[in-house]
């Protein structure tokens, strides 16, 4: 059961998006999130929706999975959209008690909903098509300049990689221990809050014990291989930008130009 969560994000494949350099993907994702938050009229918004659709389709990940990630935040989207609906100024179109809906309110609601959905979809494209290790690797390289400021970029990235590496292991371990305690009649599915918390003790204690043992083993193994941090360390997988990456970067810049043009030539509605 918990294993599904662990594998839930990365979806292996060979699509164009899968093959892009993770650094570029990270930058483009941030860029598109910025675009969708600066665009202020329907032309620009429509253009970005088209871009999103194109990305989802080329990623080769079943659209069903994207719906699933949207479904997770559907409540937040609807809630903020409905709130914004009543926060418009101008001519009321509809009034009931203190609730008024204006054209501005409707526009607000649409923009907010699309922006949140866009944010989630762009980040989903990134996490679905990039393995967690590639992602932290990309982050480490992009943040490299910060090490001049004595930020321990390599150590932070290594900690993230190790943490990510052990998420599936811990989930698997949790599954195993839970199954073993259930086999001894532990009841984790019923009872009040206190009872449920108490029922977790037989799972948490063995989990802590084994995590500490694992951490100790890992530290020992790293030490035995003379690991000593970032100084002078080379990478096994050297990232090279390819033509494909150049094309993607151009597409990102072109999208920026379209967004700016839309904002310049069409009137602000939000």
């Amino acid at each position, binding site marked *: 059961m918990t294993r599904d969560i662990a594998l839930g994000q990365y979806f292996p494949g060979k699509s164009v998006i899968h093959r892009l350099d993770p650094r570029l993907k990270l930058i483009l994702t941030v860029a598109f999130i910025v675009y969708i938050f600066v665009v202020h009229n329907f032309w620009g918004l429509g253009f970005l929706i088209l871009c999103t659709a194109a990305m989802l389709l080329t990623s080769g990940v079943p659209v069903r999975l994207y719906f699933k990630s949207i479904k997770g935040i559907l409540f937040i989207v609807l809630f903020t959209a409905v709130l914004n609906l009543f926060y418009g100024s101008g001519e009321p179109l509809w009034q009931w008690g203190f609730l008024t809906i204006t054209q501005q309110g409707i526009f607000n609601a649409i923009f907010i909903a699309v922006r949140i959905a866009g944010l989630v979809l762009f980040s989903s494209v990134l996490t679905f098509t990039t393995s967690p290790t590639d992602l932290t690797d990309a982050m480490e390289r992009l943040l490299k300049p910060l090490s001049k400021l004595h930020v321990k970029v390599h150590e932070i990235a290594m900690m993230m990689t190790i943490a990510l590496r052990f998420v599936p292991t811990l989930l698997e371990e949790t599954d195993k221990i839970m199954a073993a305690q259930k*086999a*001894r009649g532990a*009841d984790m599915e019923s009872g009040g809050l206190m009872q449920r918390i108490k029922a977790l003790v037989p799972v948490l204690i063995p989990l802590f014990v084994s995590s500490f043992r694992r951490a100790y083993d890992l530290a020992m193994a790293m030490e035995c291989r003379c690991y000593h941090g970032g100084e002078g360390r080379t990478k096994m997988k050297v990232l090279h930008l390819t033509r494909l990456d150049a094309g993607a970067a151009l597409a990102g810049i072109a999208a920026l130009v379209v967004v700016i043009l839309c904002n310049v030539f069409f009137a602000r509605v939000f």
Partner: protein
Amino acid sequence: MTPLLETKNVTCVYSPHTPFEKRAVDSVSIKIEKGDFIGVIGHTGSGKSTLIQMLNGLIRPTSGQVLLNGRDIWENPKKIRAVRFKVGMVFQYPEDQLFEETVLKDIMFGPRNMGLPDEEIERRARDAAHFVGLPDELLERSPFELSGGEKRRAAIAGVIAMDPDVLILDEPAAGLDPAGRDVLLSSITSYHRTRGNTVLFVSHSMEDVARVADRVLVMNDAHVEMFGTTKEVFSQAGRLSQIGLQVPQITQIMSILKDEGYPVETTLTLEEAVAQLLPLLPKGGDDL
């Protein structure tokens, strides 16, 4: 007569509709009678652990039924805990599940969940500890202070204390030294003999299976390859080696001798082999 435990076309698919989809058990139908002592063998990933976890309702089959005393165990999902008390399950490396302050308290965890009276719980726990050969002075210690083999025995006692009708053990002897293995196997056999309960145990050691099991279930690629008495199964060395399994070494030796024309039968254990071979030696092996 309805068998104690029966599966009808049980199938288990992990992570369905994803690239990780895996058919771990495919349409398996077996019958297990009361008092059976069954060894389960099969190469790594053949679906043994998955199958046995379906037998006590830890995994719900994707399709098919598991019948306990003729009744579908998933008939009422709320009552599944009652099934787990009847079909006890000891996982691989069960020592990872210990959590209480003392060994005795940990063994009492199962019976306590059954809602038994306090004296009964303690009596059962002490009985179970005795069965697996844990000395009394260890019972008041913390489980984390025990040696690996002792932890293993404590964990097995935790399941035996529930007095299940069927006891399932997933590779109970994995990672133990030869002496620890022997102690463990003989305590399981004596448990089986004295209580008359049904036992299923998964093992990668053909020697162990040949020594203690009455019947053997052979799994291969999510299917049941063979299910018969230990002699029947291990006399088919060719078929077993095709699916990456071997017969016990002593069985191999004896079948080679048989092919060479010596008057010997298929044997499973060292003791039987010795009994057959000694008379063939000059002087009947008197000087041995």
